[in-house]
Each structure stands twice: as structure tokens, then as C-alpha cells.
């Protein structure tokens, strides 16, 4: 059973059709990176998986449960899906420890001792054990994003969604977040990652999906998509992203 199965997914915002028929499956343990120009619908696709956006048409199954079914208990499904946002979205009124603990206590109903133990474990995992008592505003962007990853991991998810996790970071802080994600991939976590970090996609992804204008243009192993892109649109995008200094005004 695939971890994610998407069939015929359409999503419109008013008259604007952002997703125009997406079919995609993600297998357990797979790391899939979604790349493409801004406005291509990558983030909307990701946000449909846990129903932060309500699809206009199509079906989405996560671990066999159809989330697009109106009778689906979406809160229960979301417990098993971690999500990491571009803007971190740490809870500003809570310390890092409380950020990681609150959903364990309130949603999973874990006891205080168990929740504290799992929180400590996951903060160690992202290298933030000594920042447990800090508030988000006292952390760097990279530290905030790692704390946000720990917050998701503490829920023991079967799937992690990453929505441009390094796009809001200063360049020198990108590496520490990618290192955590790479380690996570190494542990066998199923990951769907929307990213502009081509080096990360090339090295860590099992599969790269290139989207443009609301459709999947091509997908395959990173060596193929980056090395021998079949589609002209993919080639052009990769040229712009990988060799930005060679782009001519006419391109």
C-alpha cells in the first residue's frame, strides 16, 4: 500500500486553476522532492495531502485512508502526517519544549513523563537539547526550523511533508536544516519535500517530480531528471536555477 496515492487532483482558487489533474504515488520509505517554478502549484499539492487546502476534484489516500472522503476524521489522519512550513510557525507564546510537548499531551494524550522524554529525545535528534527553555523569538531561523521539525517528529508520524523548509532562511543557516532532513531520510522516513534546494534533491531524493503550470511535467530518479531531462520545460527550468549567471535577458 502506498503511503500517498493521489488521483486526478484538481484545485482552483476562484477562477484560477492551480492544480490541473495530478496523479502521484509515494511509497513507504521514499523521499520525493517536488521542484518547479513559483506558481506551478507545488505547495498547493503538498497542502492538499493533509487537507490544508480542500481539493476541487480528485481523490487522495494517505496510508489507505481517503482524506478527500467527507466522512474522513481528518484530525486523526493529520496526527500521522508531520508538516514543516516555510515560515516555521512555531507557537510564539510557548517555549521550545512546550512547542514539542503540547500536541503530544493534548492530542495523543501522552502522560507528562512520557511526553517530556519523547520531547527531549527529538530535541537531541535535531541538535537543540540545550534550547529547550528558549522561546522561538530567541532562536535563529535555522534553530526555529529544526525545533519545528522536532515538534512534528514527536508525534511519531508515518509521513513528513516539507513546504519549502529552507526558503525563509539566511543562506548560512540552510545547511543545518538540510542535515536534519538528510538524517531523517537516512532513517527511512517517508518524505514529500517541496524545495528549491537542487543539491538536496539530487543527493537525497529517490525521485524528483518537476511541476509546471499545475501539472507534473516529468518525474524520475534525480540522475535522470537532472542529468538527462526529457522535456524542454524541465531543461529550461534547470538551466535558470542551476546556472543563473548564464541566463540571458531574452531567455
Amino acid at each position, binding site marked *: 500500500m502506498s503511503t500517498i496515492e493521489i488521483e486526478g487532483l484538481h484545485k482552483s482558487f476562484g477562477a484560477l486553476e492551480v492544480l490541473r489533474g495530478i496523479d502521484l504515488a509515494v511509497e513507504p520509505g521514499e523521499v520525493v522532492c517536488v521542484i518547479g517554478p513559483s506558481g506551478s502549484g507545488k505547495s498547493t499539492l503538498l497542502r492538499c495531502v*493533509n487537507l490544508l487546502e480542500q481539493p476541487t476534484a480528485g481523490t487522495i489516500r494517505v496510508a489507505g485512508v481517503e482524506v478527500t472522503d467527507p466522512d474522513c476524521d481528518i484530525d486523526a489522519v493529520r496526527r500521522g502526517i508531520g508538516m514543516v512550513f516555510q515560515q516555521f510557525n512555531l*507557537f510564539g*507564546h510557548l517555549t521550545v519544549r512546550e512547542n514539542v510537548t503540547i500536541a503530544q499531551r493534548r492530542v495523543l494524550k501522552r502522560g507528562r513523563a512520557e511526553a517530556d522524554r519523547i520531547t527531549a529525545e527529538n530535541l537531541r535528534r535535531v541538535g537543540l537539547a540545550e534550547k529547550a527553555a528558549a522561546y522561538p523569538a530567541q532562536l535563529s531561523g535555522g534553530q526555529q526550523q529544526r525545533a519545528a521539525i522536532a515538534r512534528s517528529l514527536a508525534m511519531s508520524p508515518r509521513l513528513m511533508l516539507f513546504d519549502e523548509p529552507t526558503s525563509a532562511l539566511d543562506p548560512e543557516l540552510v545547511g543545518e536544516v538540510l542535515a536534519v532532513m538528510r538524517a531523517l531520510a537516512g532513517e527511512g522516513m517517508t518524505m514529500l519535500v517541496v524545495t528549491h534546494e537542487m543539491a538536496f534533491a539530487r543527493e537525497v531524493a529517490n525521485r524528483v517530480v518537476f511541476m509546471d503550470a499545475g501539472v507534473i511535467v516529468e518525474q524520475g530518479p534525480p540522475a535522470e531528471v537532472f542529468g538527462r531531462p526529457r522535456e524542454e520545460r524541465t531543461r529550461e527550468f534547470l538551466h535558470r536555477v542551476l546556472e543563473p549567471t548564464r541566463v540571458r535577458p531574452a531567455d
Partner: protein
Amino acid sequence: MRLSPRRRRRIAQAVGYLVFALVIAVVVAAADWGRLSEAFFRLDIARGMFPGAITVALRNTIVYTLLAFVFGLTLGLILALMRLSSIPPYRWFATAYIELFRGLPALLVLFMVGYGVPLAFPDREIPGGVYGSVTVGLGLTAAAYMAETIRAGIQAVPKGQLEAARTLGMSHTRAMISIVLPQAFRIVIPPLTNEIILLTKDTSLVYVLGVTATTIELTKFAGDTLNTRVNPTPLVVAGLLYLLITLPMSQLVRGLERRAGRER
């Protein structure tokens, strides 16, 4: 002769100070200080107001303020949530309520609660006597203002906070209680403190409900003393006692706003 810009600025400044000093001097010279102190600063009359001014009048002013504030805050929170509800009739009701009670004088509402309700429902009465009527009478108006303040506070919490909470599996209600409202209240503490200051002053309207010796508040207390002693000194005493409540709170609001400004 041409003046340098610096000299011109100095002269303009000197003229400004001089005008101010002249006006003060004229007022001081023109005032009849003997009459004034006889009218407003009779220490014997002021002394006669204590301890009642504090143990009864000031105490009741504070009690009325707090009761109306708690009532208004609770109702205001409910109205704010109704205004943001996805169910249209809730939104309509909340909007109508807020528009209505923001547009009516607090005194009129107090009359309505004090005299209208007992006439409309002769067998029922608002529990708590005058205290109950004041709580409702002032709280209904305060709730309308606080509802708008709280709504703005909720909307000032970034949308990503709710999304992050929902993706962790929290229900909408749980996310509001644990994540959104605590942050919204931090944002609205300064404007809500202003609301307490306004309420403190509005308690001076309570006399229209016919207060007794034990339920009297500052303004009525001062007014009664004014009538018996035929001297306005009590008004000055009451004014000072109001400032005793409101000035520290203004100070508190300034401190909170400074702190909020630093955190951003």
C-alpha cells in the same frame, strides 16, 4: 541685518517660552486664591469624608468596575468568536449586537437594565441587587467594545499558527484554546486595560439606579457631601481617588505597550 538660522531658531524658542510664562503669570495674578482654596481645598471637609470615601465609595467603584469588566470580557469573547464564526446567523447577531451597543449611551443602557427589565419581567430580578444591575448595565456596553478588540486580536495572530496546530491533529476548538486565544490575549492586553479605565469612569453613572449608603460609589458620595456641606471640596477628593485608580493603569498600559514593541 540677516540672522543666522541658528540665531533665528534660538529667538523663536525664547519667544515661545516667554508667551507661556506670561499666560501663566496672568492666570496666577488674576485668580482669587483665597476664594479658590475656600471652595476646593477645605481640609476639614476633606477630612470628614474619610474613612468612608475609601472603605465604601472607592471600594464600590472598584467592585463595580471589576464586575462589569468580567461580565463584559466574557460576553465580549463570546461575541468575538461569533463574529468570526463560519455560521452566518452567529455573525449577523454579533455584528448587530456590537453596532447597537456601541451606538447607545451607557447611561441609557443602565436605565434600561435598572428600570426597563424590572417592569418587563415583574416576577424576575437580576440577582445581586444593585451589584447585579450594574454588572449587566455597564457590562453590556463594555462587551460590544471588547468584542471588537478581541476580534482584532484573534485576527492579528498569523494564520500559520492555526495551520500548524491543525496539522498536529488538534481540532479547531482545541487549536483556538491552546494556541490562538493565548496569543490573541497577549496582543489585546493594552487595549483591554484602556477599557477598564473607561469602565472605572462609567461607574459614576451608577447613581441613577438609586444607590444606598452601602452601595454608594465615588461620584455620588462626593455629590452627597457637596450637598450637605455646600462646598465643592468633595469633588476634588473624589477626582484624586479616581486618579489613584486610573493613573497606575495608564502607566501599566504604557509599560505593556513598550514591552510588546520590544518583542516584535
